């Protein structure tokens, strides 16, 4: 048994692609025993690019390798009766089943939540789907960009007079995955108190729409629709190019800005000018101010101005690349990255714990499983012999 906080928690993982596997990864990395059930062709996430050395291969998808650490893999064809019977056996002593099929799929397989919970009343049945298990959009299809757009985050992002922009990678999927992990744990906590499982329903759209700080409430409180911000070059918090990249300056939030301190900090006497020394003057002379700021920032170096700003208590952001993120001294000092050997691919370094937990270690100890790697061990535990396994394989159940 692992020594993580969730040691002893047994999760049957029917998830695929990104949001679901990220949720079960969080559970697995905190010590839960996560058994990943894959369709005989494998989780479609195994086909997600980019690949190790750009070689498309089910064991070399980098997103898959990242999202499936610490899990074991069993292949099972849930469309076959035997496959479903084996699943039911596995569920008999499980704490949670996590899945992210389209909402119509599990009921169609005869695996609706009621049936599963009748089979094992302790079972938490946790689902994440694009729009939730109910409502008129329940069966709508979505990809990352569609869920992100419908969730309301996309509309405020991008240039004012151009089309909205999507955030890079799969932000909606990851946020929904975190949300699902939290919700599943709440249900598990309750199960430990009462011995009863329950149904958990998480929607990717709602995961984005909740917590939007001022998109919906701008409308509900003021009747205004918050749009992408107009692009005015004198904005002090605007992204600026420096000689080796980009920074995001912020001279302070809410508090009155002492212009002289900013002038001194930027070593820019040309800004010591009545055209710029108060907020309304700066707005009137935004273009002139913007031109001067662009010139000043172009002479700065990203890391130097980042450190100097924080010494002055200005909150500066720098725009880092994945390379710089890996080399970041703060992250290195905290031992965030974890090198992990993979049986076929050698050692790869992974992002580590989303938070640290004293005494109860977060661990990535096992690389993502190879497809069906644990078929023999897991089904052996259920009493299937080597001969049975051969039969199941031949009849495409596993």
């Amino acid at each position, binding site marked *: 048994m692992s020594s993580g906080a969730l040691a002893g928690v047994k999760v049957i993982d029917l998830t695929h692609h990104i949001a679901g596997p990220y949720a079960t990864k969080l559970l697995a990395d905190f010590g839960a025993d996560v058994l990943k059930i894959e369709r005989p062709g494998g989780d479609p996430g195994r086909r997600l690019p980019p690949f190790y050395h750009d070689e498309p291969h089910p064991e070399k998808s980098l*997103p898959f390798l990242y999202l499936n650490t610490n899990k074991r893999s069993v292949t099972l064809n849930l469309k076959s009766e035997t496959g479903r019977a084996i699943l039911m056996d596995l569920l008999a002593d499980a704490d949670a089943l996590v899945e992210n099929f389209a909402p119509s799929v599990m009921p169609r397989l005869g695996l609706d939540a009621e049936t599963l919970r009748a089979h094992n009343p302790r079972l938490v049945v946790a689902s994440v789907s694009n729009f939730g298990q109910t409502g008129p959009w329940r069966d709508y299809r979505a990809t990352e960009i569609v869920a992100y757009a419908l969730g309301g985050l996309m509309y405020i992002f991008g240039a004012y007079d151009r089309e909205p922009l999507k955030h890079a990678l799969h932000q909606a999927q990851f946020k929904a995955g975190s949300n699902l992990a939290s919700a599943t744990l709440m249900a598990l906590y309750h199960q430990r108190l009462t011995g009863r499982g329950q149904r958990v329903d998480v929607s990717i*759209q709602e995961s984005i729409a*909740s917590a939007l700080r001022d998109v919906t*409430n701008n409308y*509900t409180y003021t009747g205004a629709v918050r*749009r992408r911000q107009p692009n005015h070059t004198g904005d002090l918090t605007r992204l600026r190019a420096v000689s080796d990249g980009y920074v995001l300056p912020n001279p302070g939030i809410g508090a009155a800005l002492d212009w002289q301190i900013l002038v001194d900090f930027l070593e820019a006497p040309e800004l010591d000018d009545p055209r710029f020394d108060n907020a309304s003057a700066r707005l009137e002379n935004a273009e002139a101010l913007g031109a001067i700021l662009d010139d000043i920032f172009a002479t700065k170096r990203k890391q130097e101005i980042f450190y100097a700003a924080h010494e002055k208590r200005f909150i500066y952001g720098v725009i880092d690349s994945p390379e710089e993120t890996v080399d970041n001294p703060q992250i290195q000092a905290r031992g965030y990255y974890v090198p992990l050997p993979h049986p076929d691919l050698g050692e790869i370094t992974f992002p580590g714990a989303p938070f640290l937990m004293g005494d109860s270690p977060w661990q990535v100890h096992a690389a993502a499983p190879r497809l069906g790697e644990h078929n023999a061990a897991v089904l052996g535990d259920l009493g299937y012999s080597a001969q049975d396994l051969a039969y199941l394989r031949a009849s495409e159940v596993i």
Partner: protein
Amino acid sequence: MSSANANTPSALSGIRVVEFGPYVALPLTGRILGSLGAEVIKVETNKVLDEMAFIPAWSRGAGQPEYQRAKRRITLDVRTEAGRDLMLELVRISDVFMTNFRRNVLDRWSIDFPEIRRQRPDAIIMWQTGLGGHGPYYTYKSFGILVQHLSGVSLMTGLPDEPPGVVNTSYSDYHTGVFQPAGIIAALMRRRLTGKTATLESSIFKSGVATGGPALLDYQVNGRGPQRRGNRDAWAAPHGVYPCSGEDRYIAIAVSDDEQWASLRKAMGDPPWAAAPEYETRIGRRRNEDALDASITEWTRQQDSLALMERLQSAGVPAGIVSQGRDLHDSEHLQSRSFYQETRYWEAERGVKATEWTEGESVSWSIPARMSETPIAFGKYSNIGEDNAYVFGELLGMPAGEIARLENAGVIY
């Protein structure tokens, strides 16, 4: 799904949490725990109000019915000796202490973690940081809106050949706010099982890096740096947002395979341009994306975005409007799931004590998860200091006269 019976015990009933700190991620964590039945005591002071109370308008805002509900809200100036003592008394009767203040600030107030442990040896401590509590950046002030760019994701966001796109909201905070409850609940489960407590430390920065895992691996094993693609996808096409009729209206369309392309063609009425052989395959569509997008734009431009979404979805094409605040509020789908619920709020005003703010009625979103057996309460939205009598009087057993004395002395303020 059947809704939970109001008499069912909540998932976290019996757990008391002290929440100490402003902004977004920490209060969101507290709201989630409160909705699950934990008794969350929010410690704040009228002397230094949370800037988020002044959102959406920057000088007069709505308070924070989105983040501060399902909590008991008290006022306490912990910088005073009596205030600090009361804070420690609260810690003694609580299971969880969570804060987002920096270590040097907590030290200054003598509310450091060793002190918390002395007061309550089995307290679960959750420390939310911007960049981590140790290492060279630990004293830096940070906000999610800035820290998120350290994660490597921003450099991949935006249009090719242009500066990176910067999303002007603190999405990393939102992400941190939803996974922190997972850490706290994991620690509570472990405490029940083993009797051992835990100190959790999160960082907003990491919530960004966690979403960039595949990109970090791509750099490591393939040496590939960040690429900005706007709304386009490395594989699928068409993939993007397309303008519709009306002001600033768009629809997102993402065609992942040839079957969906055939469905989109049909939905468009099989225009001759779409029959071009270069569009037959995914690779062909990717290679000719500029022309493809221009033709689709010509078609979408004349249509209502919501009607178009419904039409494309019935044809099996993944599509969605780019929702504005109003669309979310008016969405029939979200209404059918009771996503928004009615709430009172107070118009935050600078320089005016919270109890004198004007009350109003509006709506706020509910916690984005449904549970069949344990209620997820929308919860009451208290004003700042509204629960002083309950917490100091009932929980700590202070006589009313003593509470009044400390109010006048600016301690309970």
